[in-house]
């Protein structure tokens, strides 16, 4: 699961896909996830990093992370 390479993300959560011209707004935790993915972490790493940092139970985190990755996929931001 990899983010498309040329995707740009700003510090305040603004994401731009030059391939399609689409722009997106991300909340802080979503921005973090995208950055983790950009740095080459795999999904299990990302999940561990978030679990360590946030006050959340594992089931909720897994549900939400899976849903978020699906949305990245849906918006054509991932390389399969």
């Amino acid at each position, binding site marked *: 699961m990899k983010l498309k390479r040329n995707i740009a993300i700003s510090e305040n959560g603004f994401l731009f896909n030059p391939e399609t011209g*689409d*722009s*997106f*707004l991300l909340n802080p935790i979503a921005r973090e996830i995208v950055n983790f993915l950009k740095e080459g972490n795999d*999904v299990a790493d990302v999940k561990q990093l978030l679990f360590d940092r946030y006050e959340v139970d594992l089931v909720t985190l897994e549900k939400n992370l899976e849903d978020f990755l*699906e949305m990245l996929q849906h918006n054509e931001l991932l390389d399969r």
Partner: protein
Amino acid sequence: MSFFLKENNSIPNQMEKLEYERPIINKVNAGMPDKFGMSTRVPVMSHIEEVAIKDIMDQYGSPLYVISEPCIRNTYRQAQKAFASRYPRVQFAWSYKTNYLNAVCKIFHSEGAWAEVVSGFEYSKAVENGISGDQIIFNGPEKSKADLERAINDGAMVHLDSLDEFYFLGELAQNLNKKAKVALRINLDAGIYPQWDRFGFNLENGEAWHVLTRVMLHDYMELLGLHTHMGTYITAVSAYAIAAKKMADLAIRLFRKFNHSVKYLDLGGGFASKNTLKGAYLPGSDTCPSFDDYAEALTSALLASELPPERLPLLILECGRALVDDAGFILGRVLANKRLVDGRRATVIDVGVNMLFTSFWYEHDVLPTRLKSEQTENTTIYGPLCMNIDVIREAVQFPLLQRGDAVVIPRIGAYNMTQWMQFIKLRPPVLLIDEDRKVHLIRKQETYEQFNAMETIPEHLKT
């Protein structure tokens, strides 16, 4: 993808963890601000009349209805003041069908409202709530023999809806050898669409005048008043001015011909509440006229008419939704979050159209009781029923709630606690917050046993 946590990778000493919110990504549609051109800040409602919603739900569960007694009283007093400060003789009659929970009716009655009923069932409730016959207005197309006999004996105001009813009532009154107190329900053109011409008698085509003449000549009827109720959620105050003028003119015409002064003009209800109609461009809270606006239009027309100042008829109003919508709340919880095929977010809550009938015509607000951030996602909110019609809100910017989080739907006091359906689920309990902020259970959660006790199984189907 793998969803197993790697062991031995966690931070050694437990630092204070950050508050969690689920990750979201929202596509930006450049050049497309939302329809009001303002930012979507999510309002939060954590308390109702200073009582914490969390405490209420901890004690009574979910879903629930909550009614605010202070809100009912304030609203009623505003309405009363708006009219009484402009016209000397004003009387509200509480529209039972709008909310006939006894506690609610009794609040209105304690503020001075009479009862406006449209069935024998509602009539019985009014009597039980301490209203005497001469303060009951009996409207509606269906009144049974027993209903009408009771109304005649009690001296209730029977508002005639059809010629058939006129004959029927006349016969019953004659048999009882009593005069029935009647008014005529009149439908008229006040410039609003649709014109409710199915109730009562039409003014413009002469039907109303024709029947009025017959009532006047009837030995067992006494004409007390004239009534119209033009429709509901009428935002054009001018319609009330037109209707008031036409009703006043009719009363004057009656006086000229029969030397008979009607005791009252009943202009019905129909004032809008602050809810937003589906498809409306602006929120109802911005477009809804105030009681003062309605009162100004209506009473100006009456005072400008040729009604003699020393014999002004009583002005009766039968407002329903405008008096009680704001006082009602539904509390519920998130059951699930889902993703629809097109990527939209769907949130399922435990409040369905079975208990929120008005979601078919209003865009109800669904509010969080606490917020972790201002983040929202375009969301469709579904009820819990396994039915496609069970949609509470379509495509709203909604905060990132999780399963179990509480939601509040405000402004649901009108028609939901009467048009509620025993469909798939039993009806939830209703609470009242009184003026001392004490919480009372005013209608219990329905039980399986009660419901099943209504049914009988034929012998051949037993075993």
